[in-house]
C-alpha cells in the first residue's frame, strides 16, 4: 500500500512539473503584460524600466527556473494587476470557489442519484421520461447559456434571486469567509450552484441509470429475488451499492472539473472566486496569477485522482489485494 502511494506521488510530481512547463511556454503567447499595466501614453523609458524590473528580459528558461524555485516554497510572486502576493489573493478567493463547488457537487450527487435510481426502477413512467428529457438539456446546453437563462428568468423577470455576487458573507477565523450563514448568501448561491452542477447532475443521473439497469440484469440480483429478499433491500442494499463504484470515480473526478470549470459560472454570475480572478488575469496578462492558478488546478486533479484510487480499495476488496502486491 505504502509503495503504491509513494509511486503515485512520484508520478504526481512529474505531472506537476509538466503542467508548469506547458503553462510557462503558453505564457509567451498571451501578450505583453507591461502594456496592460500602464497607459498607452506612458513614456517608453518607463516601460523599459518596468520590463527589466519584472525580469521579463531574461531568457524563458531562467524565468522558468526562478518560477519553480519560488513555487517550491509556495511563493508565486506578486500579481501584476493588484500588487499583492498571489498566494494571498488566491487564498482570499478560495472559500468562494470551494463553497460554490461543493454546493454544486452536493446538488449534482443527491439529485442525480435520486433521479438516476428512479429512472432505472420506473423506466416507463412519465416522470422518468421527463427526467431523461431534462438530462438531455443539461448535457447539451453550454454552461454560460444556462447561467444567462437562469439570470434572465429568476433575477430580471421574476426578481426572486440575485443575479450576481455572493451576497453578505461572514468571516470565520482568519481567512475563511462563508455565505452559508446569511440569507442573502444562501440566496446568491442557488443559481450559480444549479448552473455549475447541472451538467454533472445529468451525467450522474445517466450513469446511475445505466449502471443500475445493468446490475439489475445480473445473476446475483435474480438469485436474490429468487431467495425472496425484500425488493427494497435488493434495490438499495445490493443493486445500488454495486453501481456506486463507477459513480464514485466519476463524481470524484468531476469534483476537480467542477472547481476548474467554475471559471465560466463564476464569470457569468460575477462570483468572486478563483475562476473569475483567473479569467481577469488572462485578459490582463497577469502571469503570476495564471501560473499559480494552473498549478493549483493541476495539483487538485492529481490529488483527486490519488484519493479516488485509494477509495477504490475501501469499496472493492479485490483491489486491496492488488495494491498490496
Amino acid at each position, binding site marked *: 500500500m505504502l509503495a503504491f502511494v509513494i509511486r503515485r506521488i512520484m508520478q504526481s510530481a512529474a505531472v506537476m512539473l509538466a503542467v508548469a512547463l506547458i503553462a510557462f511556454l503558453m505564457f509567451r503567447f498571451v501578450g505583453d503584460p507591461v502594456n496592460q499595466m500602464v*497607459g498607452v501614453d506612458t*513614456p517608453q523609458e518607463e516601460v523599459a524600466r518596468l520590463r527589466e524590473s519584472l525580469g521579463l528580459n531574461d531568457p524563458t528558461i531562467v524565468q522558468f527556473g526562478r518560477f519553480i524555485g519560488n513555487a517550491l516554497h509556495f511563493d508565486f510572486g506578486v500579481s501584476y494587476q*493588484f*500588487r499583492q502576493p498571489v498566494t494571498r489573493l488566491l487564498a482570499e478567493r478560495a472559500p468562494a470557489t470551494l463553497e460554490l463547488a461543493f454546493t454544486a457537487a452536493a446538488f449534482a450527487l443527491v439529485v442525480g442519484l435520486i433521479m438516476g435510481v428512479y429512472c432505472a426502477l420506473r423506466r416507463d413512467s412519465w416522470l422518468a421520461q421527463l427526467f431523461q428529457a431534462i438530462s438531455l438539456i443539461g448535457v447539451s446546453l453550454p454552461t454560460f447559456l444556462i447561467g444567462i437563462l437562469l439570470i434572465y428568468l429568476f*433575477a430580471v423577470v421574476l*426578481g426572486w434571486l440575485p443575479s450576481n455576487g455572493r451576497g453578505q458573507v461572514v468571516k470565520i477565523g482568519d481567512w475563511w469567509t462563508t455565505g452559508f450563514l446569511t440569507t442573502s448568501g444562501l440566496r446568491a448561491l442557488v443559481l450559480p450552484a444549479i448552473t455549475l452542477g447541472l451538467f454533472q447532475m445529468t451525467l450522474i443521473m445517466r450513469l446511475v441509470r445505466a449502471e443500475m439497469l445493468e446490475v439489475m440484469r445480473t445473476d446475483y440480483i435474480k438469485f436474490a429475488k429468487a431467495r425472496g429478499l425484500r425488493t427494497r433491500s435488493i434495490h438499495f442494499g445490493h443493486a445500488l451499492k454495486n453501481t456506486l463504484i463507477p459513480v464514485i470515480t466519476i463524481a470524484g473526478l468531476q469534483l476537480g472539473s467542477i472547481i476548474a470549470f467554475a471559471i465560466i459560472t463564476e464569470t457569468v454570475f460575477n462570483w*468572486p472566486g478563483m475562476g473569475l480572478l483567473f479569467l481577469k488575469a488572462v485578459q490582463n496578462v497577469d502571469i503570476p496569477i495564471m501560473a499559480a492558478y494552473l498549478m493549483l488546478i493541476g495539483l487538485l486533479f492529481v490529488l483527486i485522482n490519488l484519493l479516488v484510487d485509494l477509495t477504490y480499495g475501501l469499496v472493492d476488496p479485490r483491489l486491496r489485494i492488488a495494491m498490496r502486491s
Partner: protein
Amino acid sequence: MNLRKFLLAAGAAIALSVALSPAHAVTLRYANQGDLKSLDPYTLNETTANAHLGHVYEGLTSRGKDLKIGPGLAERWEVLDGAKRWRFHLRKGVKFHNGEDFTADDVIFSADRVRATGSNFQTRVPKGAKFVKVDSHTVDVELESPNPIMIAQWDTWYIMSKKWAEANNAVAPTPAAATTPSHASLNTNGTGPFRIESHQPGVKTVFKVNAAWWGKKEHNLDEIVFTPIPNDATRVAALLSGEVDVIEPVPVQDIARVNSSTSAKVLAGPELRTIFLGFDQIRDELLESNVKGKNPFKDVRVRQAFNMAIDKETIKARVMRGLSTPSAIMIAPSLFTHSKDFTSPKFDPDAAKKLLADAGYPNGFEVGMDCPNDRYVNDGPICQAVVGMLARIGVKVNLNAQPKAQYFAKVLKSGGYKTSFYLLGWTPGTFDSHNVLHDIHGCRSEGSPRGESNLGGYCNKKVDELTDKILVESDPVKRDAMIKEAFQITTGEFGYVPLHQQALSWGVSQKVELSQRADNSVLLYWAKKN
C-alpha cells in the same frame, strides 16, 4: 457542534448582519467592467482609476461637469512672469480624512512623489519645475520655460498627505511592477468627499461619505459600493434587476433593451476618444504587403484614396448603431474651437480607385491590418467594415483582429511598431490639441518622447515646429490659429483616416440622477438617488 448550536449561531449571524445595516442610509451601487486595482493615486494613469480615486483624493484644480478647469484644493492662482511662475493660494481649513490639516508641505511632497521613479504620472508636473513654499498656504511653481497648459491635468494629480505617507512608509510611489504591496496601494487618506472604508481588489470597494468635507455637496449619498462586473450580460442583468444603480459601459447591442425597461435608462453622449486608422509611412517596404521594394503609403495619393474609400456614415449607421460622431480631424470637436472648419473628404470609391491607378496601383494591392477586438466599442466589426470598403477599390486587406494584449505588444514602440495598417483610439490626456500633435503626429526620433505613439511614423518638420510654438504660446487666439494651421497640414497630407468619436453609454437606474462627463469619468459625487 451539534445541529441546534449551529442553527443558533447561524440565526445570530443573520440577526447581527441585519442589525448592523443602518436604517436610512442611501447606498448607491455601481458596477464597471474594469477593476480598481491599486489605491495609490500615482500607480496607473487611466480614466477609470482616476475617476474612482477622485472621490477620495483631490487635486489643486478640478474639472466641472463641462470639463472646465475650476478651483480645487487651490482656491485661486496667478500666472506670473509670462507663464514661467505660477502662484497657488491654497484653500484653508481643509482636512485629510485622518484629521490632519492640508498645507503647502503636502503640495510640495506630492510634487516630489509624483515625479519620483515608479510614478505613472511623472509628466503631470514639468521636469524642471521648482516648488517653493511662500507661507503655509501659498506655493510658487517656478518653470524653466513658459507653459500655459501646465495645470491642464492637475485635476487628476491628487494631493497626498506628507505626514501620513511618512508615517506609513509610503513616501515612494507604488510602481506598477511593485514586488511588495505598499501601504498606499491598499489604504487611502485624501481630502475628498468620500473615504474608502474597505477595499478587496477585484471584488468590492466601499466608499463612505466624508462628513467633514470642505465643499458644498451635490449628492445625497451615504455610501457607494463599487463592484467590478467584467461580463457584459451579467452587468446589464444586474442593472435591470435593480441590484446595481449605475453601470459603465452598456454594450451597444443592449442599449435598446435597457431603454425599453421600466427600471433603467441609458445615458449616451459623444466621448472624447477619436478612433482612427493609421498607415506605416516610414518603412521603405511594408512588413505585410505584396508590394515589394517600395511603400505605397508613402504616396499621398494612396492615403487620400483610403480616406475617400471609407464611408464613415455607413460605419456609424451599420456598425455603431447610430452611436458615434464621424470625425474629420484627429481630435474631438469639443476640445478644439475651429474643428467645424474641417470636413472629411467626400466618400467616392470611383475617384479613390482612380487615385490608386494614378499612384501606380490600378489593380490595388494587398496589405495586412492590425486591429484590437476587445479595446474600443465594436473595434473588430469596424475593421471588418473597413476591409469590405477597401475591397471595392481593389485593396485586399488581410485583417488580423486580436485581443488588446497581443495587439499592443505588436504595434507599440516596445514591440517595434510592427504594423502596416492599424486601428487605434486616442484621447488627449490634457484635453488639448498639443498632446495630439506631439504624441501622434510628431516625427519619431531615437531618445525623444515626441511621436512615441505615432505608430505609422507620419512626419512633417513644419508640424513639429508649430507644435513647439503651440506649447509655449499663451495667447489663446494665436494659439488656436497655429493649431488650425497644423491640422490643415496633417489632414491635407492625409496622415491618418479619422473615423469617429465613439459614444459613451452608461446604464442608470430610474431612481438615480447623474451628470455625464465627456471624458467617461463616472463621478458619483454628482449623483442623487431617490
